[in-house]
């Protein structure tokens, strides 16, 4: 199981669609991809429709992403129940909100 990231830019808003798992190993890919995509972007949407699982390392990766984005607006859409539960337990929505 790995992670696939597809990128689309509309104006200054970036949409990263994640497919697979965001864990210790794949979070490094996400870190790189995010850093490479975020230049000149004012708003980031992470589409989690295809994301099955996120580990604590994945959450840390999201925190780093948010930090590197200068705490600019990042939101998550289409998160599944497992991920919503992880966010609920860890209160992660305090850092990055899940919409929808």
């Amino acid at each position, binding site marked *: 199981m790995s992670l696939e990231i597809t990128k689309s830019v509309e104006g200054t808003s970036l949409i990263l669609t994640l497919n697979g798992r965001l*864990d210790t190993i794949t979070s490094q890919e996400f870190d790189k991809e995010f850093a490479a995509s975020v230049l000149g972007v004012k708003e980031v949407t992470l589409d989690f429709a295809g994301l099955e699982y996120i580990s604590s390392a994945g959450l840390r990766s999201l925190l780093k992403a948010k*930090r590197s984005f200068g705490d600019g607006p990042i939101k998550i859409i289409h998160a599944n129940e497992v991920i919503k539960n992880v966010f609920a337990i*860890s209160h992660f929505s305090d850092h990055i909100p899940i919409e929808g």
Partner: protein
Amino acid sequence: MIKALKTSLSVQVLTSVALVLVFLCYVIVYIGSREITKAVIDQYVEAAYHTARTARTYLNPDHIADYLTADGGNHPEERRQIQSEWQRLANRDSQGVLMIYLIQTEGEDYGRIRFGLTVVHPSLLEDYPEMVLYPGGTVAKSGDAQRKAYAEIYQGAKYAMVVQPQQWEEDHITVVIPVKTKEDRVAGLICVQRKMEKLRTVIYRHAYKVLGWAMLLLAVILYLVLWGLRRWLLNPIKAVTKEISRFAVKNSLSESKLGESIRMSNEIGQLARAIDTMEEQTVDYIINLTQVTRKQEQVQSELNVARNIQLSMLPTNFAIRSEIDIAAIMDAAKEVGGDFYNFYTIDENRVAFIIADVSGKGVPAALTMSKAQILLANFIYIAPDEPGALAEAVSYANFQLCRGNDSLMFVTVFAGVLNVRTGKFTYVNAGHNPPLISRGGVFEYLPIAQNGFLGIDDKAKFKEDSLSLLQGDGILFYTDGVTEAENCEHEFFGEVRLLDALNAHVVNAKNLSAQELIDYVKNQVAAFVRTAPQSDDLTMMYIRYL
């Protein structure tokens, strides 16, 4: 092996050279024999032609008809005179004139000849007494080769020749020249037959000479080839083979490079230099590999020490109070992990329980874990026994963990304090998995106040909750290593399975000791995961209020 190579290579090369030389010899002999045959024949023809021309000078072309009679016709004296001149000519020639004779051809195809004058060498008269001079007018049949020669003359050739027969066996040659009248009519033909050394003898002599020289040359060339082969091929190959064998055993550079002892620009030299390069690179690689291996071993041994340190940070004495039965396990996925559990007595009434999970795993998680463990243990230990104090202790720890946390390592924590006298359990859940509480043998997830995890937001506020434990109640703390234990089909053990397992009718938490319950859950998880590798640290702690 070297000997075999040497033998076979030498044999192959020498055989090839010998074969080539033998072939060359054959070609030389063949071409030589043709040339020699031609030269020998030319030589004889020239001499015979010369004799024939001399013989012609004695003749009067107009009297040919008289010469062709036995008695000389109208000019008997002249014929006799010519006869004696010719005889002198034949005798004088020590080189082997056998016969000089004058003939006229008869018939369209020159099939017959009429003899005119004939003289033979005296030696022939002795050896062949029966070979009486053909008297003038004698008619004889002519052979094919002769007829061809006569035809050439009538077609205008200055001379023609008959080698009898064409090659090898026979030993004489006949040159035919015309005797022409003033009107340029061929009145007769003078034939001069000469003895010829046997061509085969000449050619054999030539061949033996060539072969003799060729043998000598062959010996010299073979010697040189053998010498060159050793000098430029076998010895270098031997050196290369020796060096490779040495290197295979010793894996070290030799004192002198192969490229220095084999100073050749050809393929062997290139091979030698390539082997030098290979050896250098291999040795470098071995050194590098040794270093890397050593470093890895060092890292491994350090990790082992770190593991011991980490394990020694976990409490080992479970019998801290008679009112509670405690059991716990921690299985790290790697040598060191980011999970920990802790319990200790704060004062005569209170006992603290902490379970935590640092984001990620391995060394970075372990470092953060030891920091978190000490901070939490200390702040909770010194927190006063009053409402909100536990939440405050957690927020102090959070503040400390946030400082300098550039790598954004965060910690989820469940911390609780149990008053063993009253059964009051005060707890703070900072982003951690909700524990399960067993009341009257039935497990349920503990209602938790929603707090974020530690280490990221230094201004985070934490809320605490509390409940009362009755005798026999228990609380199971765990980390996500339990609920996110994964089987080969990438399914998680999950919170539902955990709850169901605990509430299965075979389990009656009331009757199980803490250790038995932990073992049960552990086995359930193991049965679910089966052969899949452990992906995360797995930590559990169970307390039973007695």
